[in-house]
């Protein structure tokens, strides 16, 4: 942070102080901590409790340095630089001090390094090698504590290894603001525990295993599976959501073992990862992965050869073109593909005259918009307005920026409409236009508006206040795509233009027998399209449906031909994040034998159809050009979410989002089955009283189309409007879209059987 300040700038020049560290003169801005000042001359001072993103705590005292004029050794992490300071980071006195501190740490440390997951990448090991005395003077038995404490669904705590640096506790307080961890007891008996006594549940738990300087906090998915020196590391971009965090992928024997955050990634992830990005890797090696093209013959799946499968696909497209023209062909998907693949898909179909292209399978309307505001802009905003489903569930790591902006930069958070932002920071929840106008106030400063991209009834009126902002107000707009690469797919052409049909119109046309071939590229509309019955009818009525996916998903069950494809860990290219930046994706493992990437399939298909695709060397420039081009204004078929009150005592439905939902990579990852979201029904306390329901009760949800979702759990939440129920979207067991497009539902209490 300090090194970034240009020393030639006269304005900042006045703020610089000069000190000497190990005889080297250093000039850093006033207020810099000694430990950061030392980094500018590449002198690393050992730290446990201090972390760049968490700030100083002064707990571990390993960072002792000698400062001339001070009688005792000082801690570098909590000492602010002063002019003329003379600091010594390595001399016999300092080394002696650190040796004494390490001796304290090792008094009760079990030294079970051979079986410790951190062994090999452990700060305690490293510093003990550098400064430790090598033998112990301890003659009493070591303090014994529980070794494998189950902190929650993801984390195991080894209390003996813990050195109580409290990085995890401070992460939970400062970064996520959830305040679920704390220290308990005193002195040598100090342990880390949850504040409530309940399991440690958060969407960011995995970060504490990385923050832990010793092996006290370990991930259940990685425990004892490998040692650091076995792993081969690749750096890629996460493709689980549209944030696209930089991350390291650690692979051993062609198995993805873990993903780790990239500490230097200040621009996107701020060095954090959410649990979906961290733990949802087991699907790559799941035995249910498809490895051969499957053709449905007389209702049964038959494995066929790749060449036959591609020939068949090409033949069907040719036949449809000959029989009815390009309007009888459609393609859905692209939001889960790489940029290059989405571009090839759009290019291939447009070359044939096909305009029925859409990447949107959910309720989203438009995600490629003119704004290229990034995460750092959000952090610096003064007023943050969220509209629609909360960012914490659509782009979790983006939500940490909101929490940072509010808690540390003093920004105000306003959530408008049906959904509260639910970001563990103070927020103003408004539902009326006047309320929003009041909340924004006369002097909003820099405004950031985060929208989930779904139009809803009353939306334009609600957001009218946005038009009354002073002309000079800077408004950064963010739209959170439902699919990881939604913005890229839209920019690269997977969106209907002219007379082209969108996803819903395609299903309707298919149901009416107006579609011959439908290609679904890495998408699961049967689970995600708002009207499941329409999607199913459309797929059933289409003579030839091709689905490319890793698994036999709900949608693939309706296909005539299923083509197995690579996961994002098995192919390289680029993806587009929600801010409109093109990010690199680097493959880390080999795909299973016989599996091709979507891009390869499209190239093969283009060859069979006689279409010339852009060459690989042209692709990159073309992708960048298209992604960076703001879209031309044009009418895009919009899906409008109904918010009108439901008739006669029924409840209207609000669609909730959660990060651990979905039927593809998540449903086929059994290692994290415990994390899969349990479908809930959130209702207002008044509604709960009227229906005699309490928090935690099981209920069935009966829709007005005759469908019932069984065994949901009631969550009483005053932020849900009266007369509404918020149901979780995208859960395989209780799919919300089965209720229909704008359902009115009744809650039925499940009778408790003795």
């Amino acid at each position, binding site marked *: 942070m300090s090194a970034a300040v240009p020393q030639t700038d006269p304005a900042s020049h006045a703020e610089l102080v000069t000190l000497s560290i190990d005889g080297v003169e250093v000039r850093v801005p006033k207020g810099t901590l000694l430990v950061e000042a030392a980094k500018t001359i590449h002198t690393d001072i050992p730290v446990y409790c201090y972390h760049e993103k968490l700030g100083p705590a002064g707990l571990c005292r390993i960072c002792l340095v000698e400062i001339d004029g001070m009688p005792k050794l000082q801690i570098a992490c909590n000492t602010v630089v002063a002019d003329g300071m003379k600091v010594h980071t390595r001399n016999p006195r300092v080394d002696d001090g650190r040796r004494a501190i390490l001796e304290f740490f090792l008094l009760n440390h079990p030294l079970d390094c051979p079986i410790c997951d951190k*062994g090999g990448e452990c700060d305690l090991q490293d510093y003990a090698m550098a400064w430790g005395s090598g033998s112990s003077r301890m003659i009493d038995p070591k303090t014994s504590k529980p070794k494998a404490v189950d902190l929650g669904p993801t984390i195991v705590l080894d209390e003996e290894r813990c050195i109580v640096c409290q990085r995890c506790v401070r992460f939970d307080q400062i970064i996520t603001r959830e305040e679920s961890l704390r220290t308990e007891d005193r002195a040598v008996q100090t342990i880390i525990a949850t504040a409530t006594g309940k399991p440690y549940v958060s969407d960011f738990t995995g970060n504490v295993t990385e923050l832990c300087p010793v092996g006290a906090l370990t991930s259940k998915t990685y*425990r004892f599976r490998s*040692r650091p020196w076995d792993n081969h590391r690749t750096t890629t971009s996460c493709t689980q959501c549209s944030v696209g965090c930089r991350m390291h992928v650690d692979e051993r024997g062609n198995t993805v073992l873990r993903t780790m955050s990239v500490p230097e990634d200040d621009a996107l992830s701020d060095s954090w990862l959410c649990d979906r990005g961290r733990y949802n890797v087991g699907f790559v090696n799941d035995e249910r992965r498809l490895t051969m093209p499957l053709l449905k013959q007389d209702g049964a799946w038959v494995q066929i050869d790749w060449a036959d499968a591609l020939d068949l696909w090409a033949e069907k497209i040719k036949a449809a073109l000959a029989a009815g023209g390009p309007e009888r062909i459609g393609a859905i998907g692209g939001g889960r593909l790489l940029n290059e693949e989405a571009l090839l898909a759009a290019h291939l179909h447009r070359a044939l005259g096909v305009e029925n292209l859409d990447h949107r399978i959910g309720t989203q309307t438009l995600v490629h918009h003119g704004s290229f505001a990034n995460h750092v802009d959000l952090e610096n905003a003064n007023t943050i307005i969220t509209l629609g489903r909360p960012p914490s569930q659509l782009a979790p790591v983006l939500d940490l920026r909101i929490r940072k902006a509010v808690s540390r930069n003093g920004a105000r958070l306003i959530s408008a409409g049906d959904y509260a932002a639910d970001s563990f920071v103070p927020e103003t929840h408004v539902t009326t236009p006047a309320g929003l106008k009041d909340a924004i106030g006369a002097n909003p400063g820099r405004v950031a508006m985060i929208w989930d991209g779904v139009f809803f009834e009353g939306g334009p009126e609600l957001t009218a206040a946005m038009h009354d902002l002073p002309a000079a107000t800077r408004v950064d707009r963010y739209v959170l795509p439902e699919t990881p690469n939604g913005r890229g797919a839209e920019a690269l052409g997977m969106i209907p233009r002219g007379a082209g049909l969108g996803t819903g119109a395609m299903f309707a046309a298919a149901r009416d027998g107006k579609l011959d071939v439908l290609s679904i590229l890495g998408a699961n509309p049967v689970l995600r399209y708002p009207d499941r019955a329409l999607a199913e009818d459309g797929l059933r009525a289409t003579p030839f449906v091709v689905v490319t996916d890793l698994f036999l998903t709900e949608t693939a069950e309706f296909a005539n031909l299923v083509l197995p494809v690579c996961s994002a860990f098995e192919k390289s290219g680029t993806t587009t994040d929600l801010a409109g930046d093109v990010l690199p994706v680097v493959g880390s493992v080999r795909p299973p034998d016989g599996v091709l990437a979507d891009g390869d399939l499209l190239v093969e298909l283009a060859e069979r159809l006689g279409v010339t695709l852009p060459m690989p060397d042209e692709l990159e420039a073309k992708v960048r050009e298209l992604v960076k081009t703001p879209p031309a204004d044009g009418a895009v078929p919009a899906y409008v979410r109904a918010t009108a009150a439901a008739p006669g005592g029924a409840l209207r439905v609000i669609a909730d989002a959660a990060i651990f939902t979905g039927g593809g990579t998540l449903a086929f990852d059994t290692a994290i089955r415990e994390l899969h979201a349990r479908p809930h029904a959130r209702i207002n306390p008044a509604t709960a009283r009227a229906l005699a329901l309490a928090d935690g009760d099981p209920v069935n949800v009966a829709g007005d189309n005759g469908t019932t979702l069984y065994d949901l759990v009631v969550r009483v939440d005053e932020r849900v409007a009266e007369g509404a129920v918020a149901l979780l979207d995208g859960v395989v067991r209780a799919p919300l879209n089965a209720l229909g497009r704008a359902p009115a539902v009744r809650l039925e209490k499940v009778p408790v059987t003795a």
Partner: protein
Amino acid sequence: MRKNLFNVGALVRGMSTTFSYMFKKKPTVEYPSVKKQHAPRFHGLHELRRYADGKERCIGCELCAIACPANAITVIGAENSPEDRRSPGERFAARYEIDELRCIFCGLCEEACPTDAIVLTPRFEMADYRRGAFVYAKDRLLVPPEAGVGTPPDERPNGIPADLGGVFRAKDTVDIAEGYDATHRGHILKTQRRGLTLRQAKGDDGRPGEIE
């Protein structure tokens, strides 16, 4: 002529060396019907040892694998389950494989092992017609349960050795002076493994003390 006669003497001298050996004991033995005694610290085929209670000594730490200069060892660890405890402590080796064709029998794995689990035996007859047969997995490396030696470290109720240092001081659990009858080849080992005592410090009572 005189010169030639002189050479006959050299011939006789040379042949006398040859003939002198005809009456000495032959060093060659009729292998395989007769087998020779190995050097005390001969490095042969590996074996994975157990404790006397049948638990595996190996904790799957992979220190042997990282110490191996030939990259011959593959270990994949896993977590012990309370129902089926395989080793003391939390971790055990779910897979342990040594490629004996890559192995240079240097014994560094044995040196690196914190629990004395992997040892090199004097057994050297491994010939086979298939390359794959030289990859020894746990099924061939691990000694039978009844061949375990030494008491395992004490365990606390939660399954973790009470004295964790004990896990890694396991060397004193083998009474080396008497050798050990740990394996089906115990009688060989008794005579062969004495070499270990070279590393042994004597205790006050004349019995072997802890290995430093």
